[in-house]
């Protein structure tokens, strides 16, 4: 097996990643158009431009909590997700992308309530190959996990989670990841996986869900989001850079 090689050119990467590109161009949804001319420039609507964070995602730029009733809990989540997906020279991290707002909204809905999962008793601990067997709903896991992060910060560092150093947060998160934190009704490894996955979902889901602010997650990855079609570009030998577009970018 070949050895990994980290020598990619960061300049090339930044150049093509779209981070430094100019104004955002909105476009109406043209799904349903058969054989539409899919050249982005032709279908873009010049009226719906906007570059500010506030104009994306949550309606009218308003943000608020719908699951957490306590700002302290929300702040812990904010910091924890930032450790998982930190801001760096590539672009924003979880906080900048509003990931915790995304998770808050998800926890209040069918995701948090496990409404599409089989939740009937009896509950038995199974083999790992049998998957998730907890009677806890996801929002209960998050609430408990966040409380335990705070407890760990207090007992390890005698401080609030949000006030400790990044490396200290990492130490606590790693303890969760390794299954070392005693949780009730679920093991901490499972909770950590859920937290990590929810963070990535908040980074990369369409901004209509309240995360991925300004489509910043997509920009870093060069993912153009919702595009009607690639029939005209898919044979291109070169990498094609396309301004991303959200499902929410229509009148």
């Amino acid at each position, binding site marked *: *097996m*070949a050895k*990994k*090689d980290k020598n*990619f050119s960061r300049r090339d*990467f930044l150049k*093509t990643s779209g981070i430094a590109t100019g104004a955002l161009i909105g476009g109406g949804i043209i*799904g*349903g158009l*058969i*054989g*539409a001319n*899919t050249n982005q420039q032709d279908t873009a609507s010049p009226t719906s431009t906007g570059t500010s964070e506030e104009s994306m995602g949550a309606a009218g730029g308003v943000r608020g909590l719908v699951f957490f009733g306590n700002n302290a809990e929300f702040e812990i989540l904010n910091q924890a997700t930032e*450790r998982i*997906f*930190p801001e*760096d020279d*590539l672009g924003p991290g979880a906080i900048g992308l509003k990931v915790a707002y995304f998770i808050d909204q998800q926890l209040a809905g069918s*995701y948090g309530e496990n*409404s*599409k*999962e*089989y*939740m*009937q008793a*009896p509950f*038995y601990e*199974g*083999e790992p*190959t*049998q*998957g*998730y*067997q907890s009677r806890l709903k996801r929002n209960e896991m998050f609430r408990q996990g966040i409380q335990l992060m705070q407890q760990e910060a207090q007992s390890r560092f005698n401080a609030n989670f949000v006030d400790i150093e990044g490396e200290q947060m*990492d130490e606590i*998160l790693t303890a969760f990841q390794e299954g070392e934190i005693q949780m009730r009704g679920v093991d901490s490894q499972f909770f950590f996986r859920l937290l*990590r996955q929810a*963070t*990535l*979902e908040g980074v*990369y889901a*369409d901004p209509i*869900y309240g995360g991925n602010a300004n489509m910043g*997650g*997509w920009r870093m990855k*060069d*993912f*153009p*989001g*919702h*595009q009607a*079609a*690639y*029939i005209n*570009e*898919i*044979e291109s030998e070169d*990498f*094609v850079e396309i301004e991303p577009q959200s*499902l929410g970018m229509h009148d």
Partner: protein
Amino acid sequence: MVTTLDSVDVVTVGVGWTGGIIAAECAKEGLKVVGLERGRERGTEDFSIVHDEYRYAVRYELMQDLSRETITFRNNRRQRALPMRQLGSFLLGEGLGGAGTHWNGQTWRFLPYDLQIKTITDEKYGANKLPAEYTIQDWGITYDELEPYFDRFEKTAGISGEDKNPFWGKRSSAYPTPPMKKTPILQRFETATSNLGLSPFMVPSANLSEAYENPDGQQINACQYCGFCERFGCEYGAKTSPEITVVPAARETGNYEVKFNANVVEVMKEGDRVTGVRYFDTVTFEEFIQPANVVVLTSYVMNNAKLLMVSEIGQQYDPETGQGSLGKNYAYQILPGATGFFDEQMNTFMGAGALGMTVDDFNGDSFEHGDLDFIHGASLSITQTGSRPILANSTPPDTPSWGAEFKRASIENFTRTLNVGGQGASMPHKENFLALNGTYKDIYGVPLLELTYNFTDQDRALHNYITERAGEIMQEMGAKTVVTRNPITDYDIVPYQTTHNTGGTVMGADQATSVVNNFLQHWDAENLFVVGAGNFAHNGGYNPTGTVGALAYRCAEGVIRYSREGGSLV
């Protein structure tokens, strides 16, 4: 109180590909058909905002609601079976079109070898090539007998393809539409496999390369390569699905009605005939009996087996004695493969569900197995389905799974990662089977199905061998780093693998070892038919639906003949 409805000629349970094909063929012949579908009505107009990875691909918007019904699972008989509480390994369908709404559209014909696997293996390698616990058997039908039905399905679906594979069975006619676009990523695979002396060809696709009108007069549009195909419905009506082909064809006859929110819980039986089905309205929980002259189970592998079990039709398989056929020969697939990390950026986010190229040089019996400790093999493909950012976070080995280093590597590689993957044929084993669970029930009070399954030595050997081949191809494709898949140990129901479940209601020529005959007619009840990948006696190296579609056309012929003449069809 149970309400008994007016009797019809044919009732089907579930309206996916199988239910739709039976309905269209029977309704065209003047039979009155009712399709009972537990999900809701849906169609192309519902997919105008479908380019949403989170809702459709991550939260499974179009798939089965497990809060109502799931299956239970254990790796072996010593374990306690527990419910699959959230979808993972496979994604079960629900709603009009079933899984045919959100499939990829790779449309294969199983190999002539597949249908006579036992005979050919014994002839070529002797009777002891596999230990006796592998319960391989012929399907009771040959490729040549099934060929007209394959042809039929491909014409209905308008499949785009090219007949360039030296290893597959003879075709009576060309593909109805030309292959899809051969993108630079596919060309890379083509060049590499050609250099290695292999025979690449375009994947036969139900994402159509051009607009097409099928023999029923239904229009299928041209694929726009939108990159949101697998797990999504097509907003262009370009991915062939039951609800844009066979369902409207059936409805246009005036002889077909679909009842939605109708969850069937029992097949009614009197002596050696079935009389209809009992179902719940999923909204009101009212109970109904739908009497019918013919009952066709078209509710997918899992539910077809379950309905026979709860209705006590046929003999349940017992792994202790080897007796009984119902639930026997369940098989899954194994996914050998290799990932390549490249220097240059590629348009990995563009694509279509069945856009790909394949080599069959290591599938079926196209290579010599004399010195190998397994039979069969895998098709090896590259597919460009459209990478999406939540679920595509490949990183080279030794990258941490979170934090700054993870962020950098996952972003860097999003447009620089390609996969060559195999669909490994899985051979049935006496310890892998379906039964009813004694503890857990669905929301209607009916026991859940129980899956007992693990990978076998045959699977592991095949996986190792094919993974090496995949690694060689990826190397030849010029990847900077090639990572081959880890050897498989125990089957794990958590990560998505493939929705290619087979067996449990196996077809065959012999009543002792099969549930249905080769018209998919039940051996114990002549007016009961069971159709789906559950009929497969083992799993092959391809996606199942081309073969399922062929079997559904075969079954429809059987239902029509039975309706006119009665009696056993074989």
